[in-house]
């Protein structure tokens, strides 16, 4: 009698264990897909390596300013050099690992930028220096949850809500990521403050295929507290996985 009872118990246990594992596997698959998608968004414009020509337009109460830049990236190294307007031309940022350096042609000096300054505006635009040179560690610092699935306008999208992990040192209360179901390319990204209010939003459009990769080539950044201003970025040209000489990401080259 006791023996049978025991066996029943065992069967029940094995069954429930089995069910649990299956659930976990499917959950893990979901997680994996979410992580891959988010990682792809985070490294949208870099890939293994990339060379891009970018035009930035800054609109604010003073009017409009244009900046042209060239951006090289290889692994975790990024070099941004301003090519226009003439009085700013030659100004460059070099990011290696977590170090960010500025090259200032007017002073002919290279200056290391503290992390706090990397979170301030780049050239008076709505983008920060970090936005420009740093891939955010979205999957490391945030927990990903699906918050919406369906149509926004006439595009079928997924929407992920990224909430920071307790130990993550990040500035946002949450990030909402919207991307097309068809190809996983982002359409909209909202940054929310600690208070849950939308702080700034990045809208992607004008999708083009570059080096076999579909990317949005028109980005608009709008800060919530600056109604009269916004900044656009246009990728005039971008090539992925191109060979880049290692010396590109060096101080001498930066100062050239």
């Amino acid at each position, binding site marked *: 009698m006791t023996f049978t009872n025991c066996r029943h118990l065992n069967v029940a246990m094995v069954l429930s264990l089995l069910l649990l594992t299956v659930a976990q596997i499917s959950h893990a698959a979901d997680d994996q897909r979410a992580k891959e998608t988010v990682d792809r968004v985070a490294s949208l414009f870099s890939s293994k390596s990339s060379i891009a020509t970018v035009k930035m337009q*800054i609109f*604010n109460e*003073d009017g409009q*300013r244009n900046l042209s830049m060239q951006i090289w990236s290889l692994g975790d190294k990024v070099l941004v050099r301003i090519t226009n307007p003439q*009085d*700013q031309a030659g*100004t460059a940022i070099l990011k290696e690992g977590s170090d960010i350096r*500025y090259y*200032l042609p*007017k*002073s*002919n*000096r290279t*200056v*290391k*930028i*503290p992390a*706090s*300054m990397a979170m*301030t*505006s780049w*050239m*008076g*635009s709505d983008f920060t220096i970090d936005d420009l040179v740093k891939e955010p560690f979205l999957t490391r610092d945030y927990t990903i949850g699906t918050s919406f699935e369906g149509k926004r306008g006439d595009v079928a999208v997924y929407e992920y809500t990224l909430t920071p992990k307790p130990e993550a040192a990040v500035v946002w209360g949450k990030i909402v990521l919207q991307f097309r179901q068809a190809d996983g390319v982002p359409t909209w990204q909202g940054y929310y403050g600690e208070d849950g209010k939308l702080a700034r939003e990045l809208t992607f459009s004008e999708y083009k295929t570059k080096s076999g990769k579909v990317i949005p080539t028109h980005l608009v950044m709008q800060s919530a507290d600056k109604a009269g201003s916004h900044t656009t970025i246009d990728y005039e040209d971008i090539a992925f996985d191109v060979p880049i000489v290692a010396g590109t990401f060096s101080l001498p080259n930066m100062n050239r």
Partner: protein
Amino acid sequence: MSGRLLQLAWRNLWRNRRRTFITMAAIAFGYAMLLFVACLMAGLRWQMIQNGTCLVMSQIQVHAPGYYPNRSLQKTLGGRQGTDVSAMLASIAADRRVNAVAPRVYGYGLLSAAHRSAGVELMGVVSEQETRITTLNSQVVKGTYLNARVPKGVVIGDKLASTIGIELGSEIVLLTQAADGSMGNDVYTVVGILHTGLDAVDRGLVLMSLSSLQDLLHLAPGRIHEVGIKLNHITAASTVAAALEVRLAKSLPVRVMAWPELAPELANYIQFNHGVTVVLFFIFFLVAVIGVMNTMLMAVFERTREFGMLMAIGMRPTQVIGLILTEAAGLAVASLVVGATLGVPLLWYLQVHGLDLGGATGEVVSVAGVVVGHLWYGRQDFSAYSQAAIGLAATALVSALYPAWRAAQLRPTEAMRKV
């Protein structure tokens, strides 16, 4: 009669000299003590207001509305178009209560030396004008203050210099977000290092010429953030600020703030110090009063027999009271004169030499974000002095009145039998 009363009172005072001197000593010492306390407290308040306003802040500041306290780069006087700076300065200086005026520009930036960098506050001043309203120039411990010979010279705090490892003559790069959004940057030479004892200044301020900061920030020459004002009498600061705001607002929108509004923690401290002074003064006053009352009471009670005798030979009770009060008043006045005579050298010493608080260390003392310095100077507070004098004299009279009244109530035979 009153002439005789005075004569009698005078003789009485000299009859028992020891008693008179003890009473006088009590009043005089009490008065000197009160003078000392009042002088030190007034000195502390004055020193704090002076140091708090004269170091960097100035007594009154004129800004564009909304500029203070966030110090947004774009909010210059007269808006983005700026204003005619010299005309504005002249118009402020036209007020006769104004002693001196100086224009200022502020910014934030990154100071970068060979190996390290630090975030700093940039302050642009015209040195000839600035030195008339603040004393930063006298805090330079190495090198010189800003001067025309080195147009791109900067003066920085000693703590900033040591943290980022720069010395006199070092070249530094200042990097900032300019008014047009671009990266303002240039190379400067450190011409002076200052030490104020105030951490915010010693650690975070870079002083440079107004025009070179305007260049760095890409601000037109007509764009300044602030006009600092020094008055002839700081006590008028709030009144003058209000009047200036009304007058200047006719030509361009401004906000004029006096030091109590600019440094509320200092204003609060001054008010707190006033309260403490009143309490402290009251305690010292009570001590003095008890001493005076005691000696007066004893001195008059002691003489009950004498008053009985006077009444027995025909003096009326009111005359007895009159006599005692006259004696007391004479004694009080004489004692206060003695007390003041004792006090004057003390007050003079406090005002001229001060009390040394730092002692051997020579470290500066700062209270409520203001450097007091290690010397505590006194300052004359005549209203407190006269209040103390009136208070002590009144105490002497009141404490004489009670035993006098008691003595006058007695029948002469009874009074004479008292010891």
